[in-house]
């Protein structure tokens, strides 16, 4: 045996690869995310697709799909640890911050996988023409990172509760509302085909939200995680 201190990032990576391996074998969270996203998107398109929705409504619809899919899947990473009784094992071996980093990376990977499926599907079904793709992807990436950062912390809080689903939604809504409103506004601008700089203030807000959420999570996670 060789004892060699590893960095926080390396330990976070170990937790991420463990979760990824586990997810690829049983698709615990990915199936929930994808099923919800695809069915919602297709159902809404069948119901209102023929009305030629405006950019504002399309942007709202896109983020509603992403937001609710995230709610259904991203909490699973901690809930599963509780349900399979591995949470105490993890607590005994890993530092809280490495756990947060590992779970955050996993949730980001999950969310990006979801978006790889729903973004092309959304563009195909909703007939958005002339969108500024650079602005769209800028908003999408920053908002997704913020969404993952916030939901990872909330998921850790609710994993110990009895009524997990309801509590997750109740806690998420006020925390994610500023992110959602900004993301919808930025996406609307991109759908209208506005120049990149017109969405710069939205990008700045999303970046600030992301930084605040990650710093706050790293500071608070120890308290959330112990007991």
């Amino acid at each position, binding site marked *: *045996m*060789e*004892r*060699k*201190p*590893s960095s926080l990032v390396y*330990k976070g990576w*170990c*937790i991420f*690869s*463990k979760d990824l*391996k*586990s997810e690829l*074998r*049983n698709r615990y969270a990915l199936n929930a995310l994808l099923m919800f996203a695809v069915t919602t998107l297709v159902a809404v398109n069948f119901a209102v697709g023929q009305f030629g929705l405006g950019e504002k409504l399309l942007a709202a619809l896109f983020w509603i799909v992403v937001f609710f899919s995230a709610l259904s899947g991203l909490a699973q990473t901690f809930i599963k640890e509780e349900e*399979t*009784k*591995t949470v*105490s*094992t993890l*607590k*005994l*071996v*890993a*530092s809280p911050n*490495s756990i947060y980093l590992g779970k955050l990376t996993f949730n980001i990977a999950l969310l990006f996988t979801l978006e790889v499926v729903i973004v092309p599907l959304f563009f195909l079904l909703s007939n958005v023409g002339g969108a500024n793709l650079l602005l769209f992807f800028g908003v999408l990436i920053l908002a997704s990172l913020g969404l993952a950062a916030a939901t990872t912390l909330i998921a850790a809080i609710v994993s110990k509760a009895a009524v997990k689903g309801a509590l997750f939604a109740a806690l998420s809504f006020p925390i994610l509302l500023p992110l959602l409103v900004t993301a919808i506004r930025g996406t609307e601008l991109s759908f209208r085909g506005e120049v990149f700089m017109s969405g710069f203030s939205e990008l700045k807000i999303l970046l600030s939200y992301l930084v605040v959420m990650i710093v706050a999570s790293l500071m608070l996670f120890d308290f959330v995680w*112990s*007991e």
Partner: protein
Amino acid sequence: MSIAQIKISGLSKSFDGRDVFADITEVVSQGECLVITGPNGSGKTTLLRVMAGLLRAGAGSVEYFLGDSVIQGQGLKRNLSLVSQDLALYDELTALENLHFLSRIQDCHFSKEELAQRLSQFGLGGRGNDLVGSFSSGMKQRLKYLHALLKEPKFLFLDEPTANLDEEGVRLVDEIIKSQKRDAIVVLATNERSELNYGEKTLQLGL
């Protein structure tokens, strides 16, 4: 070599206003085994979990020493192992993947050959690439012991150590406890009469 010691001072824990245990004070030194015993529901497992840092104490403290220095946080995690029915391994990972993950995250690095050799020593030879979900409860228990001992802990906590084990497994646990007592502190929670004999010190709960 630093001598390990645990100092428990006025330790109490209650759930919803009901005292699980109160005002426990004890000192255990390297080479000693502390046996925690008592009827079902007397708080044996809760006490172990509080001592391991998995639950917060209501009052009092548990201090861990290596030589003259107090160890806590990650230093304590590197030196403390707990084997319990309540602590599961990852069913979707193979035995080797479990050991690899759990040891790497605690700064212990083993080659695959080393881990495979350890698996054989614990009666799990040739099962390293099988998913832990396919193991019997006894095999899982053996794997938990292997994981617990990989980092050569100075503080080994065992909750009902022989539960789910066959005769050979019980013998293995007997060897583990006897050998660990030489270099570490063993704390075990049990109701088995035969296991009471391991203890140099006994803590009776639920009186």
